[in-house]
């Protein structure tokens, strides 16, 4: 009997979860944030339903503040996968010109991401949404189930979660309730990188080290991705060799100094690191238990 490697076991588990969702729900969608986890999730979805394209669209809840390289990559990947790409931007956020600088990371995230996601779920009537969250990213994500149920108002109750014994998933839900499904829950950041390497999955070039213009903000290296980034009077960005372990809105995503410009180098760097990739995300440190509060309010 052939023994599966740990990556093959994780892959099989994720594919089983995706097929289960398609079988049990009426209108699923895959949340596509353009990061490496989304890249792996999309790759798994294509494998799960090959030779057909996956039977659900991609949904990108855009904030207008992603890195330029992410937008280019998003459009290319959706076209390659042959899937519909739905892009939703909170119209209220556009109207009020919500941005991370004048409104702060908390309001920006709430309006553009949390509210934006809820609007998109309601607008298209999705009852299940795949997300690329992993348990090793953050504390509140660690305790969230693979099938995470949300009320009709999209709220998450961490004290009322269903058991998932022997990988049996209970998908019954009331009318207008929805499920956030995390097929990569049991993967680690290292698993993701090894899988990307082994399967040669394309990822946004920002993950590779290169010289980029950065400024320092509260100890974090923030990339000056376009002219909208407000600089202090007299400030001159420095060109430093950096890469990103995680990607979000560029003013809220810290880079790390690194020489890793190939996948083997990134994996080697991963083996030595002792911190979560999300330490670079400003939104995770807004307040105590920040992520759990956001998730209760409907954040992905």
């Amino acid at each position, binding site marked *: 009997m052939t023994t599966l490697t740990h990556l093959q076991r994780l892959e099989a588990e994720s594919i089983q979860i995706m097929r289960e969702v398609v079988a049990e729900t009426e209108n699923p969608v895959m949340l596509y944030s353009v990061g490496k986890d989304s890249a792996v999730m999309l790759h798994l979805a294509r494998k799960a339903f090959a030779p057909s394209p996956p039977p659900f669209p991609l949904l990108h809840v855009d904030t207008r503040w992603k890195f330029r390289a992410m937008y280019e990559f998003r459009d290319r990947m959706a076209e390659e996968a042959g899937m519909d790409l739905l892009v939703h931007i909170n119209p209220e956020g556009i109207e009020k010109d919500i941005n991370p600088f004048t409104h702060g990371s908390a309001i920006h995230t709430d309006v553009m991401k949390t509210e934006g996601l809820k609007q998109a779920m309601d607008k298209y009537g999705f009852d299940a949404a795949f997300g690329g969250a992993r348990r090793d990213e953050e504390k509140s994500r660690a305790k969230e189930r693979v099938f995470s149920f949300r009320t009709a108002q999209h709220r998450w109750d961490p004290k009322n979660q269903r058991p998932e014994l022997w990988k049996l998933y209970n998908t019954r839900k009331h009318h207008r309730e929805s499920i956030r499904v995390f097929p990569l829950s049991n993967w680690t950041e290292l698993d993701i990188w090894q899988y990307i390497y082994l399967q040669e999955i394309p990822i946004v070039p920002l993950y590779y080290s290169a010289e980029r213009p950065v*400024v*320092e903000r509260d100890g974090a290296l923030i990339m000056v991705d376009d002219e909208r980034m407000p*600089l202090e009077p*007299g*400030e*001159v*960005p*420095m*060109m*430093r060799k950096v890469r990103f372990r995680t990607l979000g809105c560029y003013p809220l995503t810290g880079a790390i100094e690194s020489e890793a410009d190939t996948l083997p180098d990134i994996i080697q760097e991963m083996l030595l690191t002792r911190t979560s990739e999300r330490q670079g995300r400003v939104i995770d440190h807004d307040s105590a238990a920040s992520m759990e509060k956001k998730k209760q309010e409907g954040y992905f």
Partner: protein
Amino acid sequence: MSAKHLSPETVSERRLEAVRLRLDGVTVAETARRTGLSAPTVSAAWKAFREGGWDAVPIRPRGRPAGQAHRLGETQQRLLWQRLTHWPDTDEPGWSSRALAQALTDAETGDASPRAIEHWLVAQDLKPSPMALDDLVRRRTREGRWFRQQVQPALEGQGVVAHWLGGVRVAQPATSSEKDSRRYQLYLHGKRGALYSRCFTAPPRADDYLTLFERLASRGPMALIFHGAYFRASPEVQDWLVDRSDFSLITVPPNITLRAASARG
């Protein structure tokens, strides 16, 4: 094969092996062939063994024992840092090792040679190697094209009397604590790779760059090839450059590899 470039440890092992072979009755010539040592070395090892036993066979460590070299004292180092974080009183574009040595002498904290200062700069990660531009003109690479299209016309421009290579970087000495170790260094390489530095505890601001440019521009028409700053985002620098037709600032594009020349004094 010559054993001239072998490490002391390897030579010692081979000398011990040579003695063992000689004890087994192998000739000097044959021992030399088998161990890769010269015949006189085999003889010397054999003689050392006969006179002092096994302990006398390995070679003694060469050079001055580690840690015995002259080191700059705490006061001197503090003074150097203090000087490096201010512009020199002269019109030099930064601190050279010679000027730093003179500053120590003037402050009567004890003399140090420019060479001792350079060793200290290396230990503090403050001695970047100059960019190598010499052979770029013929290279059919991105670097070569950049040189031919951007650098060469500027260097051959109207009346340019000199060009400097420079940049800004973060120095991180291996020995200091994380908090103390982060220093931002503005550096320049002038004639024959002579290094000029100015250090900061925070990233340099437009005023700092402009002070540097002013000091260089006061020497006549000038071309500066600079790496490590994103001047396009700085209106102050852009405005200054508009009025300076005698100053060419050529920024090195990101991710261009300019093989560093070996560091020279």
